[in-house]
């Protein structure tokens, strides 16, 4: 442990919480990337002779109502969940940071306009916003990503704006102006790097939420469409046979649980690590 902690990033990976969580996430990520090689079966091969069979050596997590291998579908489902969550949060973070930074830095009417719009989305629950956009755009992978990124935009925009407004009045920003710096240099060299830390951590934690949101949409059949596997959609169709084949719900349900918990634990240990460094920095 001590050795691990001496490495860069060690204060996160060197803790039980951080290291374990990271390992789990690594496994999930690898599963998503190498799904075609890891999964025992393709996700859409139906075998109507062997529907709703329990776990056997051939099918470790059993089969669903179409005879498809549950384990394989969970592995391929990781692709959906992770790619949607990461893409959506990625877009949301970038757009949110840009909007928030601009609003916080320039202030005035622009700031008021952006804040008004952001606060509007902030007042709706994320599920509702996602539903509205799916309703407009129709269900599917792209719409899911768009909907989820808009749902989380407000959070990042507000956070960035608040940070930028604080840092804007720091003396070193005034010093940069006195050296002849223009707006771009100040935003890129001073404001954004000092805002990055809390926003990135928020982004991490939001990824966990985004996975759940994607699963929720999938549960209602509004996310990616069949036969593409989605953990949420799997749980949805699993409810019909919950008493005869509970593994069809348990499998994807556990997958969601583990993924989100791992993300949150990793995010937590990240916060702690940043905290210590900040404390040391001020010492």
């Amino acid at each position, binding site marked *: 442990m001590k050795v691990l902690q001496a490495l860069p990033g060690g204060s996160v990976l060197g803790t039980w919480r951080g290291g374990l969580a990271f390992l789990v996430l690594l496994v999930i990520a690898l599963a998503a990337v190498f799904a075609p090689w890891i999964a025992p079966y393709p996700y859409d091969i139906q075998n109507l002779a062997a529907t709703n069979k329990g776990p056997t050596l051939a099918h470790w997590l059993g089969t669903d109502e179409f005879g498809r291998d549950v384990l394989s579908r969970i592995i391929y489902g990781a692709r959906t969940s992770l790619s949607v969550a990461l893409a959506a949060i990625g877009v949301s973070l970038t757009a949110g940071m840009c909007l928030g930074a601009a609003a916080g830095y320039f202030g005035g009417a622009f700031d008021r306009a952006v804040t008004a719009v952001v606060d509007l989305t902030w007042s709706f629950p994320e599920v509702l916003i996602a539903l509205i956009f799916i309703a407009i755009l129709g269900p599917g992978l792209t719409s899911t990503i768009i909907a989820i990124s808009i749902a989380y935009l407000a959070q990042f925009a507000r956070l960035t704006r608040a940070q930028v407004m604080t840092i804007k009045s720091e*003396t070193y920003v005034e*010093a940069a102006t006195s050296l002849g710096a*223009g707006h771009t240099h100040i935003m890129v*060299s001073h404001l954004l790097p000092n805002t990055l830390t809390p926003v990135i951590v928020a982004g991490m934690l939001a990824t966990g939420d985004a996975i759940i949101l994607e699963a929720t949409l999938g549960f209602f059949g509004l996310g990616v469409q069949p036969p593409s596997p989605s953990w949420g959609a799997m749980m949805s169709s699993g409810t019909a046979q919950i008493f005869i084949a509970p593994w069809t719900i348990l499998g994807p349900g556990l997958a969601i649980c583990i993924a989100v918990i791992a993300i949150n634990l990793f995010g937590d240990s990240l916060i702690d690590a940043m905290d210590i460094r900040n404390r040391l920095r001020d010492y």
Partner: protein
Amino acid sequence: MAEAAAKSANLVEVRTLSKIFTTRASLFGRQRSMTAVGDVTLDIPRGRVTGVVGESGCGKSTLARLVLRLLEATRGQVLFDGVDLASLPGSALRQLRRRMQFVFQDPYSSIDPRYSVSRALLEPMLVQGKTLDAKKSVEHVHRLMAMVGLNPALARSYPHQLSGGQKQRVGIGRALALQPEFLVLDEPTASLDVSIQAQIVALLERLKQDLGLTYLFISHDLGLIRYFCDRIVVMYLGRVVEVLPTANAAPRHPYTRALMDSTFEPDPLRRRVINRLSGEIPDAFNLPSGCAYAPRCPNATERCRSERPAIAFDGGHALACHHPLQ
């Protein structure tokens, strides 16, 4: 011709400069305004140290920022080498900043905590579009660090690893990176220990000699101002009340006199007799009419309370008082 020659004796000229802050009118209150700097007219001669002294609320820090246009003035002009700063568009102003720089009061917040010393000293070059290759960058950084008395081994240190005095040296080095002619120093030693203050002042003296700089030196410490400056501008509540042409000139404004009487000598045989002045510095939002110093002045008359004294020039000595001392 004679006028042009006289003009160039002053590097910076400030003409009736004012800065008024207004609070926003809210549902519950009227809009209130505060004159942080009122009608200041001032010359800053080339190659000399002009000191500005005053207590809290006198506007000296605001004036410092107005002179470099880090704040926009409400009225008035600042002429740098004959050029009106307010008339310059953004890019021209940024270019001109090469010649005029600022040293900030608080070393703890004037350097980005994520910047190493080296990066902080290179930022001016980057910002002004004068990028240096790796070898020249190192030379530049080492040259500046030597100039301000910093051990070059500290080049990769971060601000939190440096002492207050070392941080302030970085601030001064950064201000000198572009080889300016004019330096505005806003209480550069106020947050430092006494022994370090003296170090920094000695450094500033040496730099002025070696580089032929012009300084505008802001401080609340009259003793330091009298030691360091060639001319002294005394401010009270946003206005200039007196300009002393030499550091040892006898004060003629009662406030300057009060400041001198309050500045203790490090000599127990020369203790001051403190007159128990009544009154406090008034609220800047609610300035009394007439002379702002009247409520505290032992010589105040009715005229003082109703009519604000205009500033009058007598040789190099400027004074705004109805009943000057002596």
